[in-house]
């Protein structure tokens, strides 16, 4: 069966160009980049190249990039470094709709390490409560971490503005740009208040298990993984050369695809959204449509439940995600939809479509054809559907 893959905020396929660039670094140029021999040393040069390309995606300097093992590690490393650099500050700020990589770390720091933690609210559209945020920033705040764009709804936060304000108050600012990178332009030189920024390879057609953390040059970053002198002492562990090379290539590709994202992919998403809203009654879009990633559509279908929608979609070869944290054993809708006070009625029946530059108009039309009967079938079974 043909697969229509619209789950790119979960993970993406490795681009063929990326894989091709990686291949020589498994069984041929397998030397350790820290080695004294030319064989290993040549790999080191390739890593520097990848570092420059990764930096270029966000207009940073190559030495501001630390390669990590994933977005989660980047997030954890950034926060832990901030605490270590400010041992006397005991207050942390983030939003109520962050990825678990920040959210669960903050909760851990709150419950186990005695930090005071503020989760800034969002409104029904997922827009950040800036008044609240600005009112709680103090001298005691060690770090503010704010995602650039939300993984579930695609809603974009005003990172530049908040970063600026943080800088003025001398508070470290981190942004989880895992979903924003490669989808909207990021220019770190223009958002100078950003001290640290997280990336993850597998969201932009590099493999899973590689990430990067941008750390502003002026920051003396204490390593999260303590070990050897790799990454200039900022991350121990033998370099994941093949994946680093892959990430470099993927970042290069992502830059060239920004235009396609903004135009064609946005068009596909809008077409999908409009058509589904028209064809399916009692459906609604979650999140601020004015400030949203061009590839993401979070849409709630009243009175039915996400997992069963997904499984019927799966029968039709359509891959997407639900808005519930179902796989984790939790039955509540995701904390993101809850924070937005999306009514249970549509939160439980929320599906996230997330596109990539590989998606086509034909695929959208296929989804548009298949969804209405799926929704109807489940509603026919639902005790909450008003026939």
């Amino acid at each position: 069966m043909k697969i229509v893959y619209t789950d790119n905020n979960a993970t993406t396929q490795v681009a063929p160009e990326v894989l091709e660039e990686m291949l020589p670094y498994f069984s041929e140029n397998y030397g350790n980049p820290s080695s004294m021999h030319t064989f290993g040393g040549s790999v080191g040069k390739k890593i520097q190249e990848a570092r420059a390309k990764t930096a270029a995606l966000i207009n940073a300097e190559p030495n501001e990039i630390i390669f990590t093992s994933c977005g989660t590690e980047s997030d954890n490393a950034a926060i832990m470094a901030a605490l270590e650099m400010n041992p006397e500050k005991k207050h942390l700020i983030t939003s109520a709709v962050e990825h678990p990589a920040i959210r669960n770390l903050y909760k851990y720091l709150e419950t186990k390490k005695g930090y005071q933690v503020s989760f800034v609210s969002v409104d029904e559209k997922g827009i950040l409560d800036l008044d609240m945020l600005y009112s709680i920033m103090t001298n005691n705040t060690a770090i503010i971490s704010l995602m650039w764009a939300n993984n579930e709804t695609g809603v974009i936060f005003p990172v530049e503005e908040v970063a600026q304000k943080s800088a003025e108050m001398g508070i470290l600012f981190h942004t989880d740009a895992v979903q924003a990178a490669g989808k909207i332009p990021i220019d770190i030189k223009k958002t100078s208040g950003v001290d640290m920024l997280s990336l993850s390879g597998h969201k932009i057609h590099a493999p899973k298990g590689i990430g990067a953390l941008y750390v502003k040059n002026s920051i003396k970053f204490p390593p999260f993984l303590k070990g050897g002198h790799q990454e200039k002492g900022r991350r121990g562990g033998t370099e994941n050369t093949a994946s680093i090379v892959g990430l470099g290539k993927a970042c290069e590709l992502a830059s060239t695809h920004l235009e396609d994202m903004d135009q064609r992919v946005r068009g596909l998403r809008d077409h999908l959204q409009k058509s589904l809203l028209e064809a399916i009654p009692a459906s609604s879009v979650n999140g601020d449509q004015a400030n949203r990633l061009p590839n993401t559509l979070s849409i709630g279908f009243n009175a039915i439940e996400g997992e069963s929608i997904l499984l019927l979609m799966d029968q039709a070869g359509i891959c997407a995600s639900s808005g519930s944290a179902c796989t984790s054993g939790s039955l509540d809708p995701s904390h993101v939809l809850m924070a937005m006070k999306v009514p249970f009625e549509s939160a439980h029946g929320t599906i996230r479509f997330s596109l990539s530059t590989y998606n086509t108009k034909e695929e959208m039309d296929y989804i548009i054809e298949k969804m209405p009967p799926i929704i109807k079938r489940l509603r026919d079974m639902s005790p909450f559907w008003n026939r």
Partner: protein
Amino acid sequence: MWEYNDKVKDHFLNPRNVGEMTEPSAVGEVGSLSCGDALKLFLKINKSGRIVDATFMTFGCASAVASSSALTEMVKGLTLDEAEKLTNDDIADYLDGLPKEKMHCSVMGQDALRKAIRSYKGIEIQEKPGNVVCECFGVTDLEIIDTVKDNNLKNAEDVTFYIKAGGGCGKCVEKIESIVESLLSEAPVTQ
């Protein structure tokens, strides 16, 4: 992706006995929109107290639908007394097993059935005994204790899988954990 077996998949993709019953003898309703799953069970019961027909309406995940479908198949032909003895394990067994994380779907089936039968018999449904531990799903300490004992559960996660308690906001997980632990620690003595 849940590892649903073929039987569960079949009952999800081709559910038996879906629909509202026009003149049901009894109805059992459990769950709610906020809970994430809900089941409305309709029974037709004949004079001699035997279930002659059963249908359902379900809001929920694939295993909720499959459990409901299985339940309706299982109860047809049973006397009310027989039906009342039916447990969540029986439902899971009928489906050749459910993922442990989804056991609460079978529990929902059992609950709906008992509720329908009691309402048919005119037994007043009492307030739940005990103190509410999990507010998200309105589960009491006594319910947790019963579930742990009945199913030999080992930790709070298992409890969530069976009766959802702890699966929402999560703030009750520690309380559940301590209930389970105190039961486990007394177990060697009582058994």
